[in-house]
């Protein structure tokens, strides 16, 4: 399509939702779950790899959280930028008289 249309307040809303999710995903205690499984089977492959496996799951959650955080930041910046441009253009037009 040519051009664009935007609701800056709605963008701010979705940015806030994304930011909340970004905080919640890394807080999921999945590494602890892996460690419990590894501790339950001493002596074998699972126990030997317990920390590595826990780190892998935690890193996966952290990666999703980081991506959501970046998305939230970009949306917030976009909302602010669109709002600023709108205000600036509005002010310029306000001064037009004939």
């Amino acid at each position: 399509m040519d051009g664009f249309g935007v609701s800056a307040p709605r963008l701010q809303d979705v940015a806030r939702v994304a930011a909340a999710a970004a905080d919640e995903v890394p807080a999921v205690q999945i590494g602890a779950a892996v460690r419990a499984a590894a501790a339950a089977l001493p002596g074998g492959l699972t126990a030997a790899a317990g920390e590595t496996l826990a780190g892998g799951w935690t890193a996966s959650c952290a990666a999703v959280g980081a991506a959501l955080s970046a998305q939230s930041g970009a949306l917030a910046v976009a909302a602010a930028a669109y709002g600023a441009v709108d205000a600036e253009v509005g002010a310029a037009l306000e001064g037009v008289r004939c």
Partner: protein
Amino acid sequence: MLTPADVRRWDPFRMAEALRAFGTAADQLGGLDADLPAARPGDADWQGAAAERARAAHDRIADQLRTLGEEAGEVRRGLGRAIDAVVAVRAELATVEGFAAAGGYAIGDDGTVTDMLGQARPPQAGRLVESALFTGQLRQLLDRAADVDADVHVLLRIADPPVPAPVAGGPPVAVAAWWNGLPTPAQERFVADHPDQAGTLDGLPAIVRDTANRRRLVAAITEAQVTRLATAEQLNALSDAIDHGRQGMDQIPRRDALAAQLGQADAHLAVLRGLQNRLVAAGPRPTLLLGFAPDVGNGRVIVALGNPDTAANVVTFVPGTAARLASISGELGRAEAMADVAQSSAPAQTTAVIAWNGYDAPQSILPDAAQVRFADAAEPLLRSFQSGLRAAHTGPASRNTVVGHSYGSTVIGHTARDGPLDADALVFVGSPGVGVDDVRGLHRPPGTVYSTTGAADPIEITHSPVLGPVDDALGADPSDPRFGARVFLADPGGGHNDYWNRGNPAFSSFGLIATGHQPVP
């Protein structure tokens, strides 16, 4: 390897805790996934190119979150199945231990079955059989336990990104670059998932190859034990049937064949256990299993005494006719002697010596050892191995020497003749010929090819005109001054296998050449 002590400590209740924790995590992730559409910019709220990119990015993130939740749910279900298996294995162990205790046997933490009654009197045949049966039951039980453990391990790795495989058939330097670019968890996963590749890829660190090959050795021992047990049971059953008339005398040839199979299984098991014992034995230098392929050819094995990745000098010893998996203890004896003499020659330097039974050597003098096909087939293997040593080495470049005894010298000669061979020195010992008429055909810098042959070594007959058309079938004698190698002294009275005798002047020269000195002329 799992032991009964490990399995006794397995805790299904703790696994249930893990299951609940995964369930909670899966629910949390699912809840977030359900809420996430509210974080997606709607088509009515925002239009334009940036809006499309934002929605595409959101959809990718949402997919990742959904996958993570589904994987957590999959682990929850898998742990449920694993708990049942753990309970079953523990119950079986308790049963076996109960029967053993009732019969007067004790099962140690490491799985050793001890006849508590037999300690006070000479063991009886029946007790020995019973003890062996308990050992066999334990082994099978521990194998099942290992399967359960491996299943859980795989299950928990469901969220891991796949490890990219190295370029197939790529040069060892590319393998080393690929390996060094992997994060540590990915390296660990590759070794766990692909021990066959990790154990054989030239260019990987020696420690990594050793780790993978030790696992393969344990697996091979387990397989050999199972084969041996099955063969013994068949033989016992058939013998009993023949003895009691349930089978006719026509079954005697089958019984004899089974007895022969049992003998082979015992011998194979003894070789594998001997190798395992050698790997764990205390010694002046680490022992690393750099290659292990018991089912390829006559069985291939490569063992390093000392770490070639860090040593200042690295010697690759290529044995000749009759080399195979089962002969490795002999080659290791020579390798150890060479490591010792190199240490004496240069006490301040570290020297690693590798017994390279990494090719299919001829198994008979005639007709096999008179043919070049074994050397030709070995060329790419030795070339790649030597390049791998260089690629995996850390610190200042090592001095790499390749020593070939008898047909092993033919292998080295063909490899050098037909392409690059990463070595600073080549040493031919008791050589029947190296595939070229003179040293120029080996494409080496001047003064880096050495050769020795004792006057009494019967290998000289291969260079004798009395053989007629077979004379020099493998090439000219590299110990002949006309060949152009640096010839060094050997005991004139020594035989074909006497070069490693400590009194043989050739033996001292091995250490001198390996450490960059000139041999005893």
